[in-house]
């Protein structure tokens, strides 16, 4: 009998174009997404070498990082941001790359629009010059971020030179308690394995708590695989996946659909497949989480206190904790719920989908954002925005005192005008709490959309479960 294989093993084997003696393989790429920040130097490289795009039909470009989330009719004020977007527009014309322009309803964050259009499908290889490409792994695709040299390599050859990754399985068994969302699961996982815990591995997320998530929730989990150091994250495709894909613009059409589903159904890991590393968590133990420090692994239950540096034996770790506490303007031992916030950001490729906006609106409904807080909701795409408005979520949020913006990356990385000022503190649904990520000197606490809404209303980090009664 053939050796049992994992989901990753199968997708890998299906995409090997050739293998070298040392195990390095040339891997075929099914879908390449590109944005304005990591592509200009790649296009320039093609131009210098007189090379063309090999598969424009499998490439999609969109501008998301730099674009304003307020009135778009005025264009982009910042000259450098404008230049990047204009450069992308010139490049897509020159090289014949399919492109969703800024005024297209389908425009949005690259990792939101791929799934939304049905472009991301099980068993595919998906790459983008962006580490959160791991999001697409929620469909049972092998999806990972690449650097600009590799972007150029895929443009020219539709392949990448890769070494196979190790297999890791993170099983979250059982059912989570009320108030716990996909974001809390992944924060708890990163808190447990650390930001280097997945280095060299592709993580397969499994277990009932994962299986019972919607596609949106699964994307949130896979999105942050990179924060656990993994090359990619993935979840076995199942009925939930097929149901989500059915009828999407680029999903297989009737006739081809059955054939596709049959193939997709063959992808989940075989019983008895062996993983290089296994981690198990019990969902019942996972309450709403929040990060207190400047690394995503600094994640704790909302009911916890900020750690004290002296509690850590390793001197390097001790110095790191002390540095984080100082940067974040906190005191070791203080309750996390006493931390006041000035800004709340709901959006990003982690939590900028319809389900996320619904979760925020459910908490915001009939309540008011604290007067000391500036709160913004930035939908992940034009279509998410449209769907939310059709449900009246924008009205609920605006009524509560949230700002309702145009789609884009926005305050997730502060390349556009949305940023924290030095010393300002946010509760944010994005994925990175690095120093200065949301603006120089800014302080970030990562939370779920419901927890972000709760923080907006209370004016400090708060336990969303108080709102559920």
């Amino acid at each position, binding site marked *: 009998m053939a050796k049992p294989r994992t989901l990753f093993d199968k997708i890998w084997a299906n995409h090997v174009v050739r293998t070298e003696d040392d195990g390095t393989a040339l891997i075929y790429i099914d*879908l390449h997404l590109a944005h304005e920040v990591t592509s200009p*130097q790649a296009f320039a490289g093609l131009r210098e070498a007189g090379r063309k795009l090999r598969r424009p039909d499998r490439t999609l470009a969109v501008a998301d990082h730099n674009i304003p989330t307020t009135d778009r009719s005025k264009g982009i004020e910042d000259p450098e941001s404008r230049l990047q977007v204009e450069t992308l527009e010139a490049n897509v014309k020159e090289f014949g790359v399919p492109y969703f322009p800024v005024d297209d309803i389908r425009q949005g964050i690259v990792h939101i629009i791929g799934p939304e259009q049905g472009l991301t499908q099980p068993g595919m290889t998906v790459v983008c010059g962006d*580490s959160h490409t791991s999001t697409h792994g929620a469909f049972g695709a092998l999806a990972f971020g690449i650097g600009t040299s590799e972007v150029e390599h895929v443009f020219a050859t539709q392949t990448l030179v890769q070494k196979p990754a190790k297999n890791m399985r993170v099983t979250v068994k059982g059912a989570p308690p009320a108030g716990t969302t996909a974001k809390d699961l992944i924060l708890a996982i990163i808190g447990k394995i650390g930001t280097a815990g997945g280095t060299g591995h592709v993580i397969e997320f499994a277990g009932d708590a994962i299986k019972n998530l919607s596609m949106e929730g699964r994307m949130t989990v896979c999105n942050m695989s990179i924060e656990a150091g993994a090359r990619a994250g993935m979840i076995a495709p199942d009925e939930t996946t097929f149901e989500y894909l059915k009828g999407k613009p680029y999903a297989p059409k009737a006739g081809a659909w059955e054939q596709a589903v049959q193939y997709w159904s063959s992808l989940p890991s075989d019983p008895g497949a062996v993983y290089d590393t296994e981690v198990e968590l019990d969902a019942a133990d996972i309450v709403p989480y929040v990060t207190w420090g400047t690394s995503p692994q600094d994640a704790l239950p909302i009911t916890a206190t900020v750690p004290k540096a002296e509690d850590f034996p390793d001197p390097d770790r001790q110095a790191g904790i002390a540095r984080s506490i100082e940067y974040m303007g906190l005191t070791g031992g203080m309750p996390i719920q006493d931390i006041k916030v000035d800004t709340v950001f709901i959006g990003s490729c982690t939590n900028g989908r319809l389900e996320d906006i619904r979760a925020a609106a459910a908490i915001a409904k009939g309540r008011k954002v604290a007067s000391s807080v500036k709160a913004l909701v930035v939908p992940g795409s034009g279509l998410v925005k449209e769907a939310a408005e059709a449900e009246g979520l924008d009205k609920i949020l605006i009524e509560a005192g949230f700002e309702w913006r145009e789609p884009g990356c926005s305050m997730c990385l502060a390349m556009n005008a949305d940023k924290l000022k030095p010393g300002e503190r946010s509760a944010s649904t994005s994925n990175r709490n690095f120093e200065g990520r949301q603006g120089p000197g800014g302080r970030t606490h990562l939370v779920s959309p419901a927890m972000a809404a709760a923080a907006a209303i209370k004016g400090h980090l708060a336990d969303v479960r108080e709102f559920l009664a």
Partner: protein
Amino acid sequence: MRKFTTFTGVAAPMPAQNIDTDKVIPARFLKTIERKGLGKHLFNDMRYNTDGTEKEGFILNQPAYRNAEVLVVGDNFGCGSSREHAPWALSDFGVKCLIGTDFADIFFNNSSKNGMLLIKLPKPIVDALMEDAKLGANARLTIDLEAQEITRPNGEVVKFEVDPFKRHSLLNGLDDIGLTFKNKEDITSYESKDGSSRPWMPSLAAE
């Protein structure tokens, strides 16, 4: 890509763990459409005060380390984003080699594609080299990729392992795309086989 040749240069110690790509080059400096010129913003927020003056305590601002060509770094250096701006900034500053126990995957790949050598060594050896790097103007290491050897200031030689493919590309300054083009026929035959086995795959040709 430039060839990696043996050199002797000053090594700077950066023992902090988890130095992420946002620390290497904050996102607001990614608004460039070129590869060059990022060196002045390398480690920007660690290196400069908000008014643009240099932070005295930062290692690369100290006279002995201003032209450091090697960084001895803490665990998990380069975690975070896939942006190649991080290796571009390091390389533009003049860094040719990083030594640590462990690097984030994408950063590791991106660096070698830009002619930089990243050396992974066990913790006790990295610790010893970290001590060497604290010697100021005497913190000079010789990096010989051909022989896979680091020579310490005291003359002692440390061996290191490196992926043979990466070593070959670095030593010869080879461009990956050129190498892959040699296998164009394999790509074409993969495409024709795959086109018939997965006919439902999406096409963006109409966009």
